[in-house]
């Protein structure tokens, strides 16, 4: 009875595994080839009538049988120059690479999930940074537009207030000038609100179609004024859509100017047709 050392058995198994791997690449019937080859090796090794098959004895047998590359037909096929030979060379290289590749215990495949996770984190951070930058730019642009709008609104308010003050001053000057006083009432006839009041016997005179700086300018006479004459009020008003309120500057014959906030759109001041400077309302 011939026995095999465990090393020799292991060596033969390893040899046949290599043959199987290479033969599989050539689409051979691997099991059949490996079985035939095993029988051949066993028969050859035991033919020397030795009682124990050692690794050395096995190596001598395998040297005659051929290397795994020779047995699987790889070596002769690799000699060729055609496309098939190139494919086989690639397959051999692949086998060599896979044989020399680090095992899972060596850590390389374990690194893949970590690398993938790091990739996700990196992509998330980049996306977050892009979003933050985008929001930042948007916020700065909005703020800039708002600042410009607030600046324009503030400038408009200044101009509106100045206009009201000018109207006040002009009315005062007309009242005191007494250039033309055909009816001899002691008040200048043209241009003053007081005269207009008397001439048309109306209580309200609108002399605007001005819409400047976002303000509608309105001016009208009030029944009672200083020294028995009619009073007047000039208004610059603007509706703020964002707050739903109307801001207005009101100046009167008393010389005061006030700033008022009222809910809703301004009322009473019509838009005059182009070119018409004055409208008398009943």
């Amino acid at each position: 009875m011939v026995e095999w050392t465990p090393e020799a058995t292991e060596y033969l198994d390893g040899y046949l595994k290599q043959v199987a791997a290479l033969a599989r690449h050539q689409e051979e019937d691997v099991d059949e080839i490996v079985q035939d080859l095993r029988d051949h090796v066993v028969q050859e090794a035991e033919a020397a009538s030795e009682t124990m098959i050692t690794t050395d004895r096995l190596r001598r047998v395998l040297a005659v049988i051929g290397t795994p590359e020779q047995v699987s037909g790889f070596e002769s096929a690799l000699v060729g120059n055609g496309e098939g030979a190139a494919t086989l060379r690639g397959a051999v290289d692949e086998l060599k690479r896979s044989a020399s590749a680090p095992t899972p215990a060596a850590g390389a495949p374990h690194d893949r999930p970590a690398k993938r996770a790091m990739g996700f984190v990196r992509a998330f951070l980049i996306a977050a940074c892009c979003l933050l930058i985008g929001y930042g730019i948007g916020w700065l642009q909005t703020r800039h537009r708002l600042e410009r709008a607030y600046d324009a609104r503030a400038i408009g308010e200044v101009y509106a207030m100045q206009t009201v003050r000018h109207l006040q001053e002009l009315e005062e000057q007309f009242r005191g000038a007494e250039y033309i006083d055909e009816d001899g009432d002691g008040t200048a006839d043209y241009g003053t609100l007081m005269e207009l009041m008397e001439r048309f016997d109306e209580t309200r005179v609108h002399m605007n179609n001005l819409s400047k700086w976002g303000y509608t300018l309105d001016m009208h006479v009030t029944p009672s004024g200083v020294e028995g004459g009619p009073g007047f009020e000039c208004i610059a008003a603007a509706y703020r859509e964002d707050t739903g309120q109307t801001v207005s500057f009101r100046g009167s014959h008393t010389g005061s100017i006030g700033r008022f906030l009222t809910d809703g759109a301004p009322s009473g001041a019509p838009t005059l047709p182009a070119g018409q400077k004055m409208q008398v309302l009943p």
Partner: protein
Amino acid sequence: MKPRGIDIDNWTTQLRKGLLELCIMNLLGKQELYGYDLVKQLGRVPGLVVTEGTIYPLLSRLRKTGLLTTRIEESSSGPARRYYALSEEGTRVRTLMNRCWGELTEGVGRIRQQGEETHG
């Protein structure tokens, strides 16, 4: 020094490979053979220079193409043995191969003889 323009090793390998098939078909034409015995017989063919292990993939391929048949026989001295034999198709192909080989050797022999006479 290797001859230029041709890989002589490759050429010899391809030639032997083709001849190996011819030899197998003819050896099995007489009788069915156990794989090991077939390999040993081929190893004794002069000039064929057979690497024993290479025979088995070739036998497997010939069986897959339908030229050979196999049968398993239990052995008292070890594991079951696989015997190879020519199929009907294999027999027909062997006849064609032998005819082709005969024509080739005759033609090539004539050319070689002419060449030797010219240079001789």
